[in-house]
């Protein structure tokens, strides 16, 4: 009896427990794949795409659209406002979409003279932004608290619309912006120090999807206009009249403008 309790029961228990097999270990999509990009390279790539997208949106949609009488407003989501998102809010829309995607990428916009006081840099970001303003070069650091690789990139006044809107805004904290000024910086975060080819493409795709998502929200807003004239959505741009491109046409233009730089990196890694 003693032998049963001391040896057989524990051995049987272990056998029964072990016979189930454990919960299968989750292999990440990247398991076994070679890490080909440093996180800094990937964030530079996606920041470049962001530059092109934002400039296109600011110049061709906001700048061109305003000339056609289209409205863009910081309160564009309000029920009684019939307008599109301003460039900073366009970027926030992209960031929201990325956050909802499975890609662990973070994107934020800040400045030392923001319109919205909540977007003012403080602490380490404020110090690094001073350096960015001097040389316009990206700054990288590892945020120990959040365990995230972080990069900051200069956000330039690339279009006349940036300068005039910020200078004339009733809540502006600086009214002498000039074309080419470093108006702020985008902050990007990612948890890993290196990425596989697949992970890199996923980062770029999540940014592109974010662009389409917020642009489609804008088009949905237009669809709901009650009083304002609705621009025609198709393959034409505001430069041609009261038109807006479809999301596909918009994204195609972004790709045409940014694809060479991005492809160069991706192909070189292959």
């Amino acid at each position, binding site marked *: 009896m003693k032998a049963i309790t001391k040896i057989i029961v524990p051995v049987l228990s272990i056998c029964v427990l072990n016979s189930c097999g454990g*919960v299968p270990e989750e292999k990440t999509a990247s398991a076994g794949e070679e890490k080909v990009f440093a996180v800094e390279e990937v964030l530079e790539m996606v920041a470049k795409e962001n530059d092109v997208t934002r400039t296109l949106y600011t110049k061709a949609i906001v700048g061109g659209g305003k000339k056609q009488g289209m409205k863009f407003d910081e309160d564009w989501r309000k029920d009684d406002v019939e307008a599109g998102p301003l460039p900073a809010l366009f970027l926030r829309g992209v960031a929201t979409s990325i956050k909802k995607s499975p890609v662990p990428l973070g994107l934020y916009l800040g400045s030392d003279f923001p319109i919205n006081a909540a977007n003012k840099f403080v*602490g380490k970001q404020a110090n690094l932004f001073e350096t960015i303003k001097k040389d316009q070069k990206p700054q990288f650091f590892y945020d120990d608290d959040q365990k995230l690789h972080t990069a900051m990139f200069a956000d330039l006044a690339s279009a006349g619309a940036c300068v005039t809107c910020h200078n004339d805004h009733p809540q502006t904290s600086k009214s002498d912006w000039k074309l080419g000024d470093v108006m702020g910086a985008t902050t990007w975060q990612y948890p890993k120090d290196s990425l596989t080819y697949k992970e890199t493409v996923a980062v770029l795709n999540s940014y592109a999807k974010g662009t389409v998502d917020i642009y489609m929200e804008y088009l949905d807003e237009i669809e709901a206009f009650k009083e304002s004239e609705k621009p025609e959505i198709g393959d034409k741009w505001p430069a041609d009249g009261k038109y807006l491109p479809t999301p596909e046409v918009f994204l195609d233009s972004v790709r045409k403008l940014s694809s060479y730089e991005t492809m160069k990196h991706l192909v070189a890694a292959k």
Partner: protein
Amino acid sequence: MFKVSPLRKRQFIGGIIGLVLGSSLFYILTLDVTEEYVSIGPMNTGHNELSCFACHADAKGNLMQQVQSNISHAFGAREESVDFGTQDVTVDNCLQCHDRPNDRHPVYRFSEPRFKEATKHIDATTCITCHTEHQEERVSVENINYCMNCHQDLEVENDPLDISHVQLIAKEEWTTCIQCHDFHGNHTYEVPEHLKDTIPMQKIKAYFNGGEDPYGTVKKYIALSQEEWLKTLED
């Protein structure tokens, strides 16, 4: 087959009764009708109709597999431990029904490094900081002065309020914020311009405790019901 010593008969019968009772209870408590007895407390306002599985999804594998995996992890034979029984509830569970484009304070924004100090005081990166579940209330945060963590420098151009925002902040009247502005900006209503017309704190507190909505009934976004949420999973 088994020979039970007469001296251990009572012990044996007790063991059998315990096993039968334990197994029955284990089975009964997994049934939908007994959910309220398993719950650690009544659901918060608006969540009364939710089933446990809406937030507490089954963990991967069966119980034996989960036990084995966690023992293996304890002995270093496995890299990751696994959830036992049900998966951890995260902010993603909340957002599956409550995420919306017009949120004035979406949780993801507070992940940015510049909110590091603020989130030390109030962790706005997760819903449960203010909406702890199973409390039978709407808002569980104790102090309603949380705006002070980010809005100390607020100045409103052409301030429409009779006592300016700057003055209110200087006097540290932080509870007045919520008397005009709902935190997530989900209500369509006229914001008062005179402090005397703002919503009394008693009404705000009653609302936080699950009472009537003082910001009005017109909402910009309605969270998904359990049925609507289940449909999104089919898509």
